[in-house]
């Protein structure tokens, strides 16, 4: 052992001992607060960013949107919470454990306290754990997936913990479970890579995912060749004579960025530009909800948006600590609505980075490309999806651009664009978008 290393280890040991003392002596800093009601599981519990400032035995700070005041006497913690209007919002008492505090109390449910009648507090158990310390420098991970999960659910164990600012190089299998190297993983069904646990992301935050790189990693893609019933009239569907031997295999050339269909009589040389996209990208859905890989919702999932490409940034509402990001179901290209039920299904190499916007919530997924701000509306019907997408985009304009309702109406009446992105899966998806060039002329 050289002397330099020896000194470093000594310093490390000293550092650990010192920091232990610090925890005991000073509760100041960032914590994650968990409030669990009598009917809650870990998946339905309420999580908040908590900041504490200790001054002698006195404590002050914030518990989510509530103001916090209290005492820390030895290992005993007593807290009282007040809402933004200054009204009492609950009391908590408990004791110190190893790097944690926990106890019991009663708290007015934060979400329900807004707008409606006065809420009576709920009995809760509570827990404070230290927020993970953010590393000095962002890291880059090469993550080689070995498991692929077929169900969107907070119960999926995370495969990697990352921090805001970190970059991950990884890959996804195609919707049917195949990739560049191995014949088949699992059962297909739009299985996803991940989930990735993003430190610092809590319910009520927004997870930001930037798709830095997307590149197909096998030379072929497969596509269906029969129209889904949502895309054509019943008369057309009944009269259609599909060729049972039709070969829907494409050759992919990512260097030239083109895909070429296996020749058929009518399409002897169909060549289209590639636009490599991720069909599925998601966080874990709210509470104990579980959805199959092909499904989509407020958590994202099988959004099948053909502008979820390299360079696009996605914004997800966070429903669980760590957000639990996953992705898969890449397409070498796809027309609007995925009208045959598939795109050019293939596997891809993916590089992404993440960030967290604390305390900023969106009802459904949003995106940003070079040219547009985009809002998705996932629902059980196209008309409802149109309304949801427009509404979410309107809320965005209201919040981030301080526009009045009439100004938003005028803006949308002038420049709004819609994309019908998903017609053929368990839910429908419509995108509403506004050009960033026009938004740049607004005074916030």
């Amino acid at each position: 052992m050289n002397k330099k290393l020896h000194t470093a280890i000594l310093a490390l040991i000293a550092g650990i001992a010192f920091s232990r003392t610090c925890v005991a002596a000073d509760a100041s800093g960032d914590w994650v607060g968990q409030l669990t009601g009598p009917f809650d599981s870990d998946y339905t519990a309420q999580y908040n960013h908590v900041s504490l400032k200790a001054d002698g035995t006195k404590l002050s700070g914030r518990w989510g949107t509530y103001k916090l005041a209290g005492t820390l006497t030895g290992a005993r913690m007593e807290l009282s919470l007040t809402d933004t209007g200054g009204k009492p919002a609950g009391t908590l008492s408990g004791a110190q454990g190893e790097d944690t505090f926990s106890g019991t109390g009663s708290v007015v449910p934060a979400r329900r306290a807004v707008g409606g009648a006065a809420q009576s507090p709920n009995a809760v158990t509570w827990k404070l754990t230290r927020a993970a310390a953010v590393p000095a420098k962002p890291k880059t991970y090469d993550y080689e997936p070995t498991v692929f999960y077929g169900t969107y659910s907070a119960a999926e164990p995370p495969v990697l913990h990352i921090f805001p600012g970190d970059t991950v190089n990884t890959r996804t299998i195609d919707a049917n479970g195949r990739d560049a190297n191995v014949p088949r993983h699992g059962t297909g069904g739009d299985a996803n890579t991940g989930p990735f646990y993003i430190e610092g992301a809590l319910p009520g935050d927004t997870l930001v995912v930037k798709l830095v790189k997307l590149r197909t990693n096998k030379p072929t893609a497969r596509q269906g060749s029969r129209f889904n019933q949502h895309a054509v009239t019943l008369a057309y569907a009944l009269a259609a004579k599909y060729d049972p031997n039709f070969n829907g295999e494409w050759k992919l050339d990512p260097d030239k960025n083109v895909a070429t269909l296996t020749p058929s009589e009518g399409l002897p040389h169909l060549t289209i530009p590639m636009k490599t996209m991720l069909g599925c990208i998601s966080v874990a859905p709210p509470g104990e909800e579980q959805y199959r890989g092909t499904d989509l919702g407020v958590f994202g999932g099988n959004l099948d948006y053909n502008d979820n490409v390299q360079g696009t940034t996605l914004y997800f509402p966070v429903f669980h600590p760590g957000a639990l990001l996953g992705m898969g179901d890449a397409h070498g290209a796809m027309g609007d609505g995925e009208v045959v039920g598939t795109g050019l299904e293939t596997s891809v190499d993916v590089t992404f980075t993440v960030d967290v916007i604390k305390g900023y919530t969106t009802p459904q997924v949003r995106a940003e490309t070079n040219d547009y701000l985009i809002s998705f509306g996932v629902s059980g019907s196209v008309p409802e999806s149109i309304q949801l997408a427009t509404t979410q985009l309107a809320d965005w304009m209201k919040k981030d651009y301080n526009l009045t309702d009439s100004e938003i109406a005028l803006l949308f009446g002038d420049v709004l664009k819609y994309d019908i992105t998903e017609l053929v899966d368990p839910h429908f998806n419509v995108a509403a978008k506004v050009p960033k060039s026009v938004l740049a002329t607004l005074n916030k």
Partner: protein
Amino acid sequence: MKIAALASVMAMSCMAADLSGNWIAQIATQGEPQYTRVSLKVDGNTLSGMWGESKIDGTLTGARLDIKLSDAEGNLAGTLTGMLAGDTFTGTGVISAGRGGRGGGRAGGGPVNFTLARPAIPPATPRTINFEPTNFFGTYSAANKPALTIFPGDVVHTWTADAGGVDAKGIQHRGGDSNIGPFYVEGALPGDTLVVHLLKVRTNRPTARQGTRINAHAITAAWLTGAEVDPKVTGEWTLLPDKGIAVPTHPSEHMKNYSVPLKPMLGCISVAPAGDEQFRGGDLGPFGGNMDYNDNVEGTTLYFPVFHAGALLGMGDGHAAMGDGEVTGSALETSMDVDFSVEVIKGDSSGQVRAETRDYLIAFGVTGSVPESIQVATSQLATWIKKDYKLNDSEVAILFASTLKYEITELVDSRYNVVAKVPKSILASMK
């Protein structure tokens, strides 16, 4: 005497020779007449030719015409007798009902009254016509009297008032998305396609007006009931065509520097709807009408199914710019200078309106719901591409699945309109 008799014989034979060529047959029905293109060939007293898709065998005796029609399989399809008076044959006979015979069992047919007349003769060279509108029709209907008769190839310079009926000079005409025209296009018959080239669509005054409330079909009920009207937002626009932009005339605080690119379009463009149907100017259907497609701009070509002789083309409701779906119920409503020309594709028509821009082939789907409009637009585009590019159902499916684009063009009027389109660059690479 002898000379006179000879002259008479010569005149007769001259006339007989002249009867060869194209005719339009019109068969009276209880509703609108049925039209058929007829070609006659006269050889002495013998007549041959085609009556629509039926073969003609017959005789011409003086002014009397006797013909027998037979279908493609050689079965008897009708017998007709008529007399020439002036330039028109008038007569009676029995004819199999053409439409009923398609697909189903053999149609019974029945007695008919018919006329055979010469089609209008086009001018030697296409004309350029300056048309100053004086009448604005507020109802799509074949009962509107044509304002001008034009031939394929003719170019018309004209203008439209805004949706409220105000023209470039501020003169108020009929409002309610009223249209100029209708233009009677010679040679267009039911079952044909009318082709309209929009050669010029430019704003012709410096002002436009827009609604400032989002329509209920575009936004959730929760948002709508919570929305507050901002009285500072007037919806008045100043158009700056030299800069290619529009700016709010009385901008609110956040919109002091706001501008939108001009993209002048025609909200309404139509032929007369089928049969005795009548629709208000704000309505839309297989005849076109208030389609509100923001790519119906200068350079776009539209294809209409023809439901009546002359097609009866009309247009109006110019917008200086419009977002998808016309979500405020109106766009930047203004008047326009319009140049257009027309063509007719004989014997071929589509279920609804289609269009072609520089980059895309486009099919519209106008129905009572957005999901149905998606299906109609996709099916119409698929039918078009299958026919013109000789693809089978699997080929058109995979082509669409890899390159189709949808646009939601109309959310706020009496019916919905969705566009399905494919890039021409891809179609060009296929051939």
